C-alpha cells in the first residue's frame, strides 16, 4: 500500500533508528506509519538481523489495521524466507487468523472458511507446543461448525422448496461428517421432518430416537417428538439405519 508520496519521503537512516521509530508508531496505534517504517528497515538494511524481525512486525501491523490480504502476503513472505526461524509458528498463526477474520456468513461463498480451516489445522498440528496451538484449535472447531452451518443452510433451502431428497443428503452430511458440531440436533429434527414428508416412517422414528438419546431435553427433540405423535408414531431406533450406525460410537 505504499503510495508515491511515501516513495518521495524515502530517506536513508540507521537500522536502529528506523526500527525504534517503527515500534513507537505501532505502539502509538499509527499502524500504516508502522508498516511503512518496518518495510523501510527491510528495504534499506536487508542483511541486518532486524530485517527478519521487521518483516514479521510489518505483517502484524497490517493485521492490526484489518488489512488481511496484506497480512497474508507478508506472512507468506516470512515463511518462504525463514522457514526455520523460531518465530515462524507466529507467521503461520497470523496467516490463519487473517483468513479467519474474513469468513463470510453461511449464505455466501465459503472459500475463506476452507482456507482458514486448513491453515488453523496447520498451526496446531505443526506447532503443538507453541502458544498459538490452543487458540488455533478452538478457532478450527468454530470454522468446522461454520461449514456445518453452510450444509444446513443449503439443506433448509431444498426443504423449503420441497426437494426432500436433496435436503436429506445434505442433512446426512452434517450428521456423518460434522458430528461434533452444534448443528447435529437440528439436523436430526429436520431428518425426522423430511422422512415423514416422504413417508419413510422407520427412518423418521430412528432420527427422533437418536436425537432423544443424544440430546434429551433439547427443544429439537421436543419438536421431533410432537411431530411423530402427530403422525401417531413414536421414536424407535432401527438398528439397520445409517443413523444408528453413525451414532454407534455414541450409543
Amino acid at each position, binding site marked *: 500500500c505504499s503510495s508515491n508520496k511515501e516513495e518521495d519521503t524515502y530517506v536513508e537512516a540507521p537500522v536502529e533508528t528506523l526500527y525504534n521509530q517503527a515500534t513507537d508508531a505501532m505502539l502509538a496505534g499509527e499502524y500504516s506509519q508502522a508498516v511503512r517504517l518496518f518495510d523501510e528497515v527491510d528495504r534499506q538494511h536487508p542483511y541486518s538481523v*532486524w530485517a527478519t524481525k521487521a518483516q514479521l512486525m510489518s505483517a502484524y501491523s497490517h493485521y492490526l489495521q484489518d488489512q488481511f490480504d496484506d497480512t497474508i502476503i507478508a506472512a507468506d513472505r516470512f515463511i518462504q524466507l525463514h522457514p526455520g526461524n523460531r518465530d515462524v509458528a507466529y507467521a503461520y498463526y497470523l496467516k490463519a487468523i487473517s483468513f479467519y477474520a474474513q469468513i463470510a*456468513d453461511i449464505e455466501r461463498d465459503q472459500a475463506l472458511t476452507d482456507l482458514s480451516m486448513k491453515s488453523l489445522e496447520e498451526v496446531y498440528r505443526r506447532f503443538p507446543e507453541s502458544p498459538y496451538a490452543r487458540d488455533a484449535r478452538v478457532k478450527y472447531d468454530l470454522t468446522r461448525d461454520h461449514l456445518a452451518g453452510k450444509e444446513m443452510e443449503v439443506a433448509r433451502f431444498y426443504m423449503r422448496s420441497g426437494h426432500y431428497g436433496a435436503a436429506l443428503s445434505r442433512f446426512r452430511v452434517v450428521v456423518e461428517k460434522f458430528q461434533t458440531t452444534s*448443528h447435529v440436533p437440528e439436523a436430526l429434527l429436520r431428518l425426522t421432518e423430511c422422512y415423514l414428508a416422504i413417508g419413510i416412517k422407520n427412518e423418521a422414528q430412528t432420527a427422533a430416537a437418536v436425537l432423544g438419546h443424544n440430546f434429551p431435553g433439547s427443544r429439537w427433540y421436543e419438536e421431533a417428538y410432537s411431530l411423530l405423535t402427530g403422525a401417531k408414531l413414536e421414536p424407535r431406533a432401527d438398528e439397520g439405519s445409517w443413523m444408528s450406525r453413525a451414532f454407534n460410537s455414541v450409543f
Partner: protein
Amino acid sequence: GPTSKAALPPPGSTLAQAPAAPNASAPPPAAAPRAPVQSQSISSTAYPPASQIRVEGTQRIEPDTVRSYLTIKVGDPLSPGEIDKSLKGLFATGLFADVSVGVDGSSTLVVRVVENPIINRIAFEGGKKLTEKELLPEIQLRPRVVYTRTKVQQDVSRLLDVYRRNGRFAATIEPKIIELDQNRVDLVFEINEGEATTVSKITFIGNKEFSDSTLRTELVTAESRWYRFWASDDSYDPDRVAYDRELLRRFYQSEGYADFRVVSSAAELGPDRKNFFITHVIEEGNRYKIGKVEVVSQLKEFDPALVKEYIRVKEGDWYSLSDSEATVSQLSQRTGNLGYAFVEVDPQIKRNAEDQTIDITYVISEGPKVYVERIDIVGNVRTLDKVVRREFRLVEGDAFNSDKLRRSERRIKDLTFFKSVQVTQEPGSAADKVVLKAKVEEQSTGELSVGGGVSTADGPLGLVQVRERNLMGRGQDLSVSTTLAARRTQFDISFTEPYFLDRPVAFTTDLFHTRRDLTDFSSYNWQSTGGSFSFNYFITEYWRQRLGYTLRRDVVTDVDSDASIYIKDQEGKTISSYVTHELAYDRRDSRISPTEGYMVRVTHDVAGLGGTAKYIRSKLRGEYHLPLADEVVLSLAGDVANITGFGGERLRINDRFFVGGDTFRGFSQGGVGPRDTKSDDALGAKNYAVNSVELAFPSGLPKDLGISMLVFHDIGTAWGAEDSGPDIRDSTKLRASAGVGFKWQSPFGPIRVDVGYPYLKDEFDDTEFFRFSFGTKF
C-alpha cells in the same frame, strides 16, 4: 437459522500473542539453535553419510533456511541423485541467482549460493494512459521481493496484456535495472504506450444473401465511428473476434444455412499501427428447408409418438439451428417427465443435395447413469447461495442431464449479477456421481441514470433513477425514480422479490405519486397517489398470470373556469381500491422489440372493495409479428376495452379511456371519443377498439446509424359518454389514419417521429399531424 457467525472474535483480539518487539538498544536476539533433524538412512550405504553441511555465500537468508530446502540432511548418504535433487530444490525457491553443491573432503556437503538481489523500488516511466495505480496490481514483483529474471519477463508480458486489453497494440515495455548497494536493485519499466488501436473496418468475403451491414450487427465487435464516442466495443480484442465467429455461425445456421462455415478471420494492423482491419471469409453454402422429421427411441418400451407433439421444427420450414436445439431441449424434458431419468437426445442430420432439404432424426437414447451428488456455488462473496441455486434446473440427487445443465448455466448468466459464470462438472465420491460447481464472479449491479428529453405529450422532461438489481445480494430489485416534465411530475419506488417465499412467483410492490397537466385537451390537472402489490408467475412456459391489488387516491384540480360543466363537477378526490387479474399467452421472440410470434392478453380490474370508485374494467390485446424479409417486419395489433360502473356510482373522469396519441396516431391524446363541443374538452370514453398495422423496414441509410422506417395504418373508434347533454358529441363512427415514421437509436438516445394523417374522422375529433419523442439516459 443458527449460524456460528456470532462465535467469531473480533480481529485484533490476539494482540498479546504478537512476539515481543525487540528493543533496538538491547543486543539483537541470537537465533535459537535449531534442533538437528534426525533422519534415518534407509537406503543403500554405498555413499558416505554427510557428517556436516556447510553453507557459503548467504547474506540475507539464514544458513538454516538454506539447509531446510535441501533434501539431504546430516547423516544421509551423499548420493549424486540426492545432491542433484537438492540443487534443483534450491533453484526452485527463486531466492538464488546461482547455486553449486559439492562434497569437501569425504563427508562435508558444501552448498555455495549467490543470492538474488532484493528489489528496492519499482517505477513505471513513460505511461500516461495507465497510471502506476492501475499497473502495479497487475504485476507479481513488489518492493522487498526477491528479484528474478523470469519474474520480470512474466511481469512485462502481463503489462503488455493490460495495454492490449486497453486497445494499445503498439505498446512496448523495456525493463531496466539500477544496481544499489547491499545487493539491492531498483526496477524501472520503461513504457512506450503507442497509439490506441481501434477497428476501423469489418468486411466480409463470400456473403451473398446478407449484406455486410446486416452481418455487422450480429457481431459484438463494432467499427469505430466519430459519433460513437462513448462506446468501447470498437477496440480490437482477439477473444471478441473469436466470439464473433461463433455468432456468425449461429446466425447463419438459424437462417437455414446448415453448411455455413467461417473459412478464416483475419485481423490486420494498418501500417500506422493505429487501426485494425478485420476480414471474415465465409462460405454461406446452401439454404436448406426441413425435410422429414422423425423421432426414434432406443429406450426400452418407449413409444416416441408420446413426445412427437413437442417437436419445434416443421417440414417445409427453413432449417434453424435454434429451433432444432429447442426441440432437443423439449424432447429430453418431456421424456424425462415420463419417467426416463437418463436421457440423451441426439439430432442426426441428413442433407439431401437434390432438393436442398435436411432430414432430422431425433434419437432418444439412454444417457450415462450419473447422479448429481452436490451442487457447489463458489465466488458469491456478495450474492446469497440460494439466489444462484434456485436457477439450477437440477437439484442434488437428480439424474444428470446435460440439457438441464446447459439451461441452468444460461439462467444464471441471464441474472446479469455476475461478470462471469462457469459451471463445471467434477467427479463425485463414486463413479456414478458428479459434482456440479458454479463459479461466479460478482460485478456491480447498482445503476444511476440521469436523462432528459422532449415529447409532444409531456413537453421537455428530465429523469433520475437509482436502481439496485441485486439488493444486498438477495436478488431483489429496488428502484427509485423521478421524472420532472413540463406537463408531468412523477415519483416512483418499486421493489421486486423474484422468488416470493422461495417459490417461483415474483412479488412486486410499488408506491407512486403522479401529477399531470391535462389542460391541453381536458382543462384540468390530475394527481394520483397510491400503492400496489402484485404476484406474477408463469403457469407454463408461455402462460403468465398476474394477480394484484391497488389502492389509489386521485384528485382532479385546477379545472379551468371555462371548462366543460361535466369536468367541473368532477373536481375533488376519489379513492379507488381495485384488484387486477391478468392472463397472457406470449409466443413473441422478444418482449422489448418483437420480430416474430404472437401474444394475447386479457386484463380485468374490479374496483369497489372499499373506496368510492365502483367499476369493472376489461381489456383485451392481441399482437402478431411476421418477418417478411431481412429486417422487414409486419406487425398487427388489436385492442378492445370496456369499463362499466356499478352500484350507482358515476364513473370518474380519470378512470375513463382517452384514446389518441400513441394509441391512435393522427389524433391527439383524447382526440377520439366523447367531447363537450361547447368547451372543446375531451370527456373520456367507456369503450374503445383500435387495430393497427405497421410495417417496419430499413431506411437505406448505413445500418449502424440505427435508423429504421415504418409505415402504419390505425383504425378504430372510442365511444360511450358517462353524461348526456346538448353539447356532448359521442359517436361510434370508425376513424382511421395512415402515416409514416422513423425510429433512430441516436448516440444521444432514442428518437421517434410519427407523421399521421387522419383520413376518416368525426367532425368534433381533435387531430395531431406530427408526434415527436426523444429521451436519453447517461
